């Protein structure tokens, strides 16, 4: 059976000024897949992730999510920029979790999770409230719903951030080094939540340095360096038996 890919990147280029960060990225993410991106810092993996929900505009190539071009309409062979509202509507289907959590500090945990469904989707409070509490229960923070983010540990904050993204009921979740800012003993609790999410069938793209997580949970993995995909395949193969010299050199340092 041919399933429509969730994310398709075709020859994606992106520069910041004179610095070319992405130099022709090609990849496909299937629905329900856990897709890991690894590579040294500065390899363009975070930038690529940010292109998927149009936080960054790509300069060349095509990027499609769920069969739709990200940020553009294509009419008569011409690309038309989307209006702000249309881009925002596309982003609702894509959840994102940041390295630095970025919880809203002036809102309680519950307020953080309820904010977007209520004010972006316009859902009724009682429905959102119920869903938010269920999500917070799922990430193990039901007893913290009335706390403010500053009263939580890093691991707890990141779990709230995951619940906040899930509250929009996205079809795709992007994780941008979700455990890199955490104390070592707090990494596990966040990875556990992500593992459960993967088991529930969520499509996930995970930029990470957690090779064990990638090996155990990932369905596909790419190794990026210098703005290109150097090597791709099943995490077990790429991590266990790297073919490329650059991959070998990188893995020898992090494993």
């Amino acid at each position, binding site marked *: 059976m041919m399933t429509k890919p969730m994310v398709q990147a075709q020859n994606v280029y992106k520069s910041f000024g004179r610095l070319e960060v992405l130099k022709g990225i090609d990849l496909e993410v299937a629905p329900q897949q856990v897709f890991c991106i690894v590579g040294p810092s500065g390899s363009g993996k975070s930038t690529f992730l940010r292109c998927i929900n149009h936080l960054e505009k790509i300069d060349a190539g095509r990027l499609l999510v769920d069969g739709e071009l990200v940020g553009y309409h294509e009419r008569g062979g011409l690309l038309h920029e989307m209006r702000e509202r249309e881009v*925002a*509507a596309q982003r609702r289907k894509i959840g994102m979790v940041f390295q630095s959590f*970025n919880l*809203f500090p002036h809102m309680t945990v519950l307020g953080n999770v309820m904010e977007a469904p209520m004010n972006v989707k316009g859902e009724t409070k009682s429905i959102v409230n119920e869903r938010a509490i269920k999500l917070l229960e799922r990430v193990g923070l039901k007893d913290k719903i009335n706390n403010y983010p500053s*009263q939580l540990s890093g691991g707890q904050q990141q779990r709230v951030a995951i619940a906040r993204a899930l509250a929009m009921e996205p079809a795709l979740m992007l994780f941008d080094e979700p455990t890199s800012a955490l104390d070592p003993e707090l990494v596990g609790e966040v990875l556990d939540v992500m593992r459960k999410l993967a088991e529930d069938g969520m499509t996930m793209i995970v930029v990470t340095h957690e090779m064990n997580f990638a090996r155990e949970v990932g369905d596909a993995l790419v190794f990026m360096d210098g703005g290109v995909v150097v090597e791709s395949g099943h995490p077990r193969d790429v991590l266990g038996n790297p073919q490329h010299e650059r991959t070998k050199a990188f893995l020898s340092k992090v494993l």
Partner: protein
Amino acid sequence: MSSHSIEGRPKAIRAVPVRHPGRWVAAGLIAILTIMAIHALITNPRFHWAEQAKYAFDSSVLAGVRTTLMLTFFSMLIGVVLGIILAIMRLSTNPLVSGAAWLYIWVFRGTPVLVQLLVWASLGALFPTLGLGIPFGHVFFSARTFDLIPGLAAALLGLGLNEAAYMSEIVRAGILSVDEGQTEAATALGMTKMLTLRRIVLPQAMRVIVPPTGNETISMLKTTSLVAYVPYYELLFKIQNIYTRTYQVMPMLIMASLWYLAMTSILMTVQYYIERHFSRGSLRALPPTPVQRFRTRFLGISG
């Protein structure tokens, strides 16, 4: 508790505290100066306390107080609303929009507020009539400027538009103080720029915006006294009316000062509680209110 320690917890430290003779000397000096000041206030008949008391709650003075408060409130309202709009304009990527805001701030911050008040009050000299119509074309409606801009309007325009220039800089600093990651997180959740500004950025910017805004309000309360020269009947204007009749200039000016002090004291209290409100989430525990502090300090009750 560790079980292997035989003596258990050592005795609490009881050290001889450091003496501060300088503080005692300073306190003594301040006490003497205070007593001298009180003595002068009581024994010098030229303060005319009885006269002051007679006029303190005179109906015309109270009307002046009300007008002063009203001018402060509405001028600040104009200043804050217009200030937010100007701040957003200045952060716009469109150079014409940000340039217009810059020009506004340049003009209104660069000229004295008293001059601005007088200009508004005598705008009729520049434009004898004001009208509404098609630019350079038909005029549907026009009226004499002096009828359209009475003293009150001139006062509010002068104070409010000047304040907006200052407020916009305060608001802009507040907006810029909010971490970029907040906007990114909101954008990733599908929020539009305006929604992000309203729900995420401005509430957090408030923590930076409120303290200087409180100062601006207190400053505005005093600046309203310039309106006496527009002229419009606020507190100082009323007081001047009284002392031109009674020739008790100093007692009346002191009385006016006491009124201004009383009003700014109230505003300072309000400011404290507003700042406390907006520090929610940024501090693990809110600072105690003065009442709570008094209770813990003198009655030994906490919480």
